[in-house]
């Protein structure tokens, strides 16, 4: 089993061996290939039951969530089981401001948002409000540690969902909010609402694919941002807190402040993904945000390898792609797509027993001056 999961290590080793410039080139080629996948889908990768572009759009959203959750769980070591709450806050911010079902609708003749750019304007707003939610949740709860934090965040996630369910005068309750705004781009006679509207459902470059491209662009931006944070003082403080909070505190790291930063940044990224979701589906309802989804996001992070931002993107791909791939496949009269939670459960248990660090574990290295140190070493050897 250990040997079976080892390819991750080989890949990881190769990647670490590359220089900065080579990493950029390999990364650019990798993401370009990913972006072209929906247009030239290989037959083995295609999802027969469901649009491949839509699947990839979902993957981009979950990947952004996984990167955000990775900041909280993987980098700072704070176990957040209610992350779906931030996703919900982001999605509901966009929906409440732009859906005609909402009492706070600002799109249309009486509001200050114009249909053409309403969604774009709402994205930073959604991120800001979600970051605020992270701050409000973080300030009282981040003094708790480990398991208690997990439970409080779990409670927070449930409370957000129940609020969305119960405050039916604002959120329209279980019926949800319909006709959420989305970017209007490429409008012509055939597609009066643009390429991002659900009307664009024919062919390979359907609206799912367009959303995937948008999500992929945002994902790359977030990856660069998080990568820079990781290599900065903040990232080193997070690692120190994750490895030993007391020791970090003794060494002069303001643990509370940096934990709060991790929480707020993670929340904002979750909010961004929520805004993407609201735009793509054009519908936001409470049942999307149940705790099971929180667990699935955590699965993506753990599966990919906590702390490794490219690993968690792969984890997100697995948890989105596999159920969609298996959707139409029948075995013994059972639709394999239905069994996704069974597979994930088994995979998680097996992974924790045989390889608790995930498929692509993060390698501890000299974070601060690793490149310089390696160069020095190399010079000393030769």
């Amino acid at each position, binding site marked *: 089993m250990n040997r079976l999961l080892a390819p991750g290590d080989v890949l990881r080793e190769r990647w670490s061996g590359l220089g900065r410039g080579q990493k950029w080139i390999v990364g650019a080629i990798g993401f370009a290939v990913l972006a072209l996948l929906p247009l030239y889908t290989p037959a083995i990768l295609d999802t027969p039951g469901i649009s491949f572009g839509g699947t990839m759009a979902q993957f981009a959203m979950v990947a952004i969530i996984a990167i955000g959750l990775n900041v909280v769980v993987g980098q700072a070591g704070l176990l957040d089981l209610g992350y779906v709450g931030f996703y919900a806050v982001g999605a509901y911010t966009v929906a409440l401001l732009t859906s005609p079902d909402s009492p706070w609708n600002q799109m249309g003749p009486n509001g200050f948002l114009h249909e053409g750019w309403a969604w774009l304007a709402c994205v930073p707003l959604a991120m800001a409000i979600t970051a605020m939610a992270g701050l409000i949740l973080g300030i009282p709860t981040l003094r708790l540690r480990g398991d208690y934090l997990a*439970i409080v965040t779990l409670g927070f996630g449930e409370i957000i969902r129940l609020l969305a369910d119960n405050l039916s005068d604002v959120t*329209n309750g279980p019926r949800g909010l319909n006709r959420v705004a989305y970017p209007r781009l490429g409008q012509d006679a055939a597609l009066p609402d643009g390429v991002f509207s659900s009307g664009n459902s024919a062919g390979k470059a359907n609206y799912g694919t367009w959303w995937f491209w948008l999500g992929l662009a945002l994902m790359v931006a977030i990856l660069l941002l998080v990568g820079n944070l990781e290599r900065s003082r903040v990232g080193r403080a997070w690692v120190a807190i994750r490895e030993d909070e007391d020791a970090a505190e003794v060494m002069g790291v303001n643990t509370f402040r940096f934990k709060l930063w991790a929480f707020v940044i993670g929340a904002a990224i979750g909010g961004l993904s929520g805004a993407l979701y609201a735009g793509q589906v054009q519908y936001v309802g409470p049942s999307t945000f149940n705790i099971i989804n929180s667990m699935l996001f955590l699965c993506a992070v753990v599966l990919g390898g906590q702390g490794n931002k490219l690993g968690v993107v792969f984890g997100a791909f697995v948890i989105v792609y596999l159920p969609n791939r298996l959707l139409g496949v029948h075995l013994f009269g059972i639709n394999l797509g239905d069994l996704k939670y069974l597979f994930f459960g088994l995979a998680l248990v097996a992974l924790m027993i045989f390889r608790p660090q995930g498929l692509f574990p993060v390698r501890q290295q000299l974070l601060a001056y690793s490149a310089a140190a390696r160069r020095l070493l190399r010079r000393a050897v030769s």
Partner: protein
Amino acid sequence: MIHQCVGLVTCQAADVSFNLTGLWNSFGQLTIDGLAWGAIYALVAVGYTLVFGVLRLINFAHSEIFMFGMFGSYFCLQYILGFAPDGNAYNVGIGPTVGYLAVAMVFGMLVSGVAAVGVEAVAYRPLHKRNARPLTFLITAIGMSFVLQEFVHFVLPALLPDYGGPNAQQPIVLVQPKIQFTVFGADVTNVTIATVIAALALAAITDAVINRTKLGRGIRAVAQDPASATLMGVSRELVIMSTFAIGGVLAGAAALLYILKVPQGIIYSGGFLLGIKAFSAAVLGGIGNLRGALLGGLLLGIMENYGQAVFGTQWRDVVAFVLLVLVLLFRPTGILGESLGRARV
């Protein structure tokens, strides 16, 4: 939307009521009902608290152990005792009813206990053998929770037709709730009496086992200091196994009391919310502390019912979670303090 919304305050006023007179008028009734719910929470909470005390593990799969108990009891009622699930109440007299229920309860306890020990052996033992990190345990527990739920959701219907699956099972009503007597203006039904008596008896037995027997001493010792306990000749493996068994058995008992109260609640996902609340109860009373779990369960049941009366039925779960968050913020170790080992030796 029928009415125009002017601002946040008026909007919320329509969704959230604040009704203290309702609480005042039916205070006794709410307390009695809350007590019955609390008794069920308390029994499930014991499983969380004992396992946490011994392994420092939030056993997320415990809610699924409870769900297995529900299905076990139901299986016993339907296939072994031969009751048909048609929604009509059976009137077989007090004596036989209690007998049938006792058999179903024992069967449910057996199923839950075996399931709990099985989960421990398959998933947790490899981890605590190599002293894995707490996060690893938690993720394993989440994975096991998925596996058990999906087993009942998909695999069970394939093995036993008309059993398990995505829909709730048809209720088997052995006891029709009937008012037995009235105390302080509160109607006490036979179901409430049975629930509270059974739960109290089981709680007393568990308390005695933990505090007075050799096994209980072993459990407390391992909770306090695993290494020293092992040096003193306590078998850690055996203690962990019996801890899971005790928790599972109590969850099975709680499951029967639950389906007595909510006959239509037997569904594969039915354990989840109750499990979270029972865990909240354990935290409320001080996790790792047996009596704390019992107290926390009763308190949570009662407070939840009060909150429901004040704010409206749909806010019941919100009240429970807010209560949990508040307790953790102001007294992170719970009402009675944290450790099983440090509780009265």
